[in-house]
Each structure stands twice: as C-alpha cells, then as structure tokens.
C-alpha cells in the first residue's frame, strides 16, 4: 500500500495541487439565502397548517428575501387557533348541509322535461331535433298530464267529440274482435300506421257504439293531443320526412300524422280531421290547413299499401288500458332499448349515450311495407340508423322474412347501429322482441335476443 501511495504520489500531488489552486467560494449572500429557505422550511415543518396556506400563495423556493420575511411575519400572525380552524368549522358543516339538501332534493323532486320548446317555430337540424325528441322520454314525463287527461274525459263525451279520432279496426275484414283502437303517443309509429291501415272506414267511426273503447280512445286522444311533441316523434319515425324540414315542418308533420290516420282510415277525411285538430290545437291546425293538401298525396301512397295490413291487428292489445303505466315512447331510442333490455350487450363504442337515431330521408324509400311471404300480408318496416353512420349496412332483408315467418307483427323497426350490428325490433301482440344481429363472417347472426 505504501508502495502504491508512492507509486501514485505524483498523481495524488497533481490533484491536490489542483485542489489547492481552485477557488470555489460560497458567496455569503447565497449562503444566507439558502439559510433563509431552510428557516422557512423549518417553520413549515413546525407549523404545517399555516405554512401550507402560504404555499398556496407562492412556492417557497421562488421567494425573494423581502417576501420571505413578510411571509414569516404573516405566518406568525396566522398561527392563532381560530385562524387555523375557522375555515374547517364553517366549511365542514356547510358542506354537510349542502350534501343533505342535494340528497333531499334528489329524492323528493321529480325532474321532468317539458317539450315546450318543440312547439317553437325555430329552425334546427333534423338530427338535432330527433336527438332532442329522443331525450324527452322520462317515464315521469306524463304524470302531470293525468289531470289533463281526466279533465278531457270529463269534459268531452267521446261520442260527440269531434276532436277524438276513433279508428275502429273491428270493422275490418279480419278484425273480428271489434276492438276500437286509437292513436296514442305511446304507440309506435308503425302501430299507428297499422291502425290507420286497418281503419279503412269513415271517420265517423268516432261515434262507434263501442262505448268502452271510445272512452279509452278519448283518453288516449286527449293525451295524444296534449303531447304533440311525441306525435312529432312518431311522425318523424314513421314518415321520415323531417330531415329537410324545420321544426315548423315537424309541427306540420304532427298534424299530418293525425291526418295520416284519417287518410288511412278513410282517404276523404282530411278536412274533418283538420277541423278536429283545430278545436284543440289551433296552431297545429292552421299548419295542417296549409300543408295538408301537399302532404296527403304522398301519404296516400303509403297508406294505400297499408290498407290491407291491419286486418291482423285484432290481436293487438288495447294500449289505452295500459297507457298511463307503460308510457312507452312511440319510437324508442337505441339507448332506451338497451337500457330497458340489459341483456342486450352492445359495443359501447358504437352506441353511446350520445348516439342519436336518425330517420333520414334516404330511408324513406325503405320505410313502408314489407311482405310477409308466409301469409302474404303486409306490415310496416321502419329503418333507423345511428347518426354516426353514413350508410346503412347491407342487411339482408330476407332476414326479416325469416324473422316474421308465421307471425303477424304490428311493427318492425330496424336500427342500424353500426356497420356490422343491426337491432331488429318486432312488435307483435304488444310484445316487443329485440334481435341484435351481428355480421360474422359475412353472415348476419343473432347474438342477443330479448323479449319484453
């Protein structure tokens, strides 16, 4: 070791000489500055609460000497008990009170979305409108309408009420049960068309002898007329005319929808229906008067083809009896379908809460009727697609034939969820059956089935 020391003596000496010659001097200012920082840190360690308050104001390391002194002085002042705890003493009970209030409010108040805005004649895009309509389907929505419905029943005897549209499908060929069905907001658009198709009889069927059904109809009709927003939705779904229309047009379509029923029932009743609509909803009636002539023609085309369809609707349940409880929207949104049927698992990336279902005009050509080859009968098929989709997927329509074989659906709704997923809703006898199809290896396969 000694030999090593001697051996490296010159090297050691060289470094030691270099060390001696170097002159790193710690400036007194720097030394004091660091000392001040340490003092501040020591204060922080000793008084964590008061110092924490200071930290929020400014980082310690960036303080000038003057600031450090000032903060140290302030810290001394803030160190009394009340200063430290008063914030906690006030804020904690206040937070608890606010939380209690929120919980109380959430439990005791029903927040309803009133569709008033949909009546305003403002211009908006159809997709936005459809989205807004789909968003107004809270089950509690119509609780406030009960009184109005009851009032309407009391005030307006169904037999002489021109405002009530009664479609007696019982007089149809196969509708031997004699049930009188009417439009209601909860009925899917396809049902409405079906009803109208079945009711190929004069509108004076309002005066049908079936008093019980008429009573139900009155209730339904009243509600139908007090909730034109939903009618609009129905119309949007059924007619698919809204993509290029403003909301004003939607209102027109609402009336047209009523008119469509009339036309379907009896293609000569348009004027009567306008009158009836005017009685209760003058603003809509006026729109109807303006537009009925142009709309009737196009609607007739569809309705004519539907006329023979509803001979099988005698199997449909009386929606009126269950109307207040079910409150099923006319056109269920995809989200709602999924929410109501948790068994249906869909790709959340494809269907999100923001997904809006749009019935585009290009789907108008597809909407309408479809032949159930087994029975050679017609039923309506409506196509919807997620707004995120630009093109409908190639969904083999023969699937619908297979799906409805030996069945008499009142409505079939096809929802294009994505390029590879299609949800088919078949309504038969008031029972909804949902088939979620997925394209696997080029073939459409049912991956989920739900019945409610």
């Amino acid at each position, binding site marked *: 070791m000694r030999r090593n020391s001697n051996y*490296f003596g*010159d090297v050691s000496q*060289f*470094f030691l000489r270099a*060390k001696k*010659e170097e*002159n790193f001097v710690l400036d007194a200012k720097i030394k004091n500055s660091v000392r001040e920082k340490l003092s501040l840190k*020591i204060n922080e360690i000793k008084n964590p609460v008061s110092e924490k308050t200071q930290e929020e104001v400014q980082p310690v390391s960036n303080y000038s000497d003057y600031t450090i002194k000032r903060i140290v002085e302030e810290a001394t002042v803030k160190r009394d008990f009340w200063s430290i705890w008063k914030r906690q003493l006030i804020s904690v009970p206040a937070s608890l009170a606010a939380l209690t209030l929120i919980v109380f409010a959430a439990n005791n108040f029903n927040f309803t979305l009133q569709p008033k805005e949909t009546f305003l004649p403002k211009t908006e895009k159809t997709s936005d409108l459809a989205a807004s309509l789909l968003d107004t389907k809270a089950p509690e929505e119509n609780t406030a309408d009960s009184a109005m419905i009851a009032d309407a029943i009391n005030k307006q005897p169904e037999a002489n009420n021109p405002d009530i549209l009664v479609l007696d499908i019982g007089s149809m060929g196969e509708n031997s049960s004699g049930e009188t069905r009417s439009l209601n907001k909860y009925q899917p658009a396809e049902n409405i068309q079906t009803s109208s198709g079945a009711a190929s009889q004069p509108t004076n069927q309002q005066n049908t002898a079936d008093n019980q059904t008429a009573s139900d109809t009155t209730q339904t009709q009243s509600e139908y007329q007090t909730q034109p927003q939903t009618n609009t939705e129905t119309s949007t779904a059924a007619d698919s005319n809204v993509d290029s229309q403003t909301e004003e047009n939607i209102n027109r379509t609402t009336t047209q929808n009523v008119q469509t029923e009339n036309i379907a029932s009896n293609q000569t009743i348009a004027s009567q229906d306008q009158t009836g609509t005017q009685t209760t909803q003058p603003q809509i009636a006026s729109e109807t008067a303006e537009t009925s002539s142009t709309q009737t023609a196009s609607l007739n085309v569809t309705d004519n083809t539907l006329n023979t369809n509803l001979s099988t609707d005698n199997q449909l349940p009386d929606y009126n009896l269950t109307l207040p409880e079910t409150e099923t929207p006319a056109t269920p949104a995809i989200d709602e379908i999924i929410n109501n049927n948790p068994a249906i698992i869909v790709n959340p990336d494809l269907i999100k809460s923001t997904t809006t279902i749009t019935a585009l005009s290009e789907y108008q050509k597809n909407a309408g009727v479809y032949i159930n080859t087994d029975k050679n009968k017609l039923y309506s098929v409506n196509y919807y697609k997620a707004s995120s989709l630009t093109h409908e997927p190639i969904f083999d329509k023969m699937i619908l034939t297979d799906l409805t074989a030996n069945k008499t659906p009142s409505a079939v709704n096809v929802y294009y969820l994505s390029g590879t997923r299609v949800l088919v809703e078949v309504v038969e006898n008031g029972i909804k059956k949902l088939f979620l199809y997925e394209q696997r290896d080029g073939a459409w396969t049912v991956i989920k089935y739900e019945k409610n």
Partner: protein
Amino acid sequence: MNMGGVNPLDIEKRQIEEAKKDPEKFLPLYDKYAEQIYRYIARRTGNNHDTAHDILSQTFLDALSHIKEFTWQGFPFSSWLYKIAHNNVIKYYKKSEKTRYSPIEEARNVSDINQNIEEKIESSITQKQVQEMMQKLEEEEREIIRLKFFEGVSNIEIADIMGLSVTNVGVKVFRVLKKAKTMLPSKHDLKKYA
C-alpha cells in the same frame, strides 16, 4: 481520531439526533457543511453560481426534509450530504440535458487576485491539465477523483455515497489513478502551457 476525549463524530451524531427532534438544530449542520458541499457542487457544475446555488439549496432542503430518515452509520454527516448533492446534480443534468463535464478551468476566474503572475500561470496550467485529464475519464472515474482528492472522502464514504462496495471502490481508485498517471503531463508538456 479521538480529540481530547471528544469524538467529533459523536458530537455530530448528537447534533443530528437533536435536529431530528427540533428542525432548528439543523441550521448548525448547514453552517458547518455549506461551504464543503457547495465546492463539490460547483466543481461539478463548472462553478456556475446560479446552478450551484440552486443545487446547494435543494440539497439542504432535501436533507432537512428527510433528516428523520437519516440513520447513523458512523460516517460523517457530510457523506449523506454528498450523496444527496450527487443525486441532485445528476437530476439537474438529466433535467437540463447538459453535459456532466465540469470545466474546472472556469474556476480560474475566481482565483485569488492576490496571486502573483507566476502563481497564476502555474495555477492556470494545472487547472487546464486537470480539465483535459478529467475529460478523458469516465464520469464514475471523475466522481471518484473528485471525492477522493478534492473532497478528501475516505473509500468507505465513497462507497456509501456512490452505492458501491468498499472493495470495489478500492479497485476503482487504483485503476483510475493508474489511468491518470499515464495522462499526467510531462515537464515538456508543462512548458507547453507556459
């Protein structure tokens, strides 16, 4: 080691224990080691005052914050401070992505102005030679030289600071000295700088 019956390490140990209980007692330790740690940092940062100041400040703030975690192992408190400073320097250079090399020649700028011309020239030559030599060494070797010859730290402390075994440090010191010896300037080279 025992100076008049009072072991300096014992005094330091007691100071540390007191500082753990009362942070105010940390200040005497700062006063004692501030210059030493500053030199070490300045040597590594090329006597960049601002950077050295920042790292020195951060080193002692870290030490104060973690004083309660300090475990006495029989080494001077400076070993722990060197370790913190070493880590902070590395952190600084990683952050700024600057070269770790510390040009010692910059130290000439703060050389004593009272040195006579001859001394200044000699000092300048030595510093330049050290600078050139250090440039040829690996960072770990430079660190060993700094700690061993410029900081006067023992092999045990170097091992503690650098996270090496004592034996490994001994081997590395031997190798770096051997390497440095070959780089040592000859008398002829010394004239070159004159």
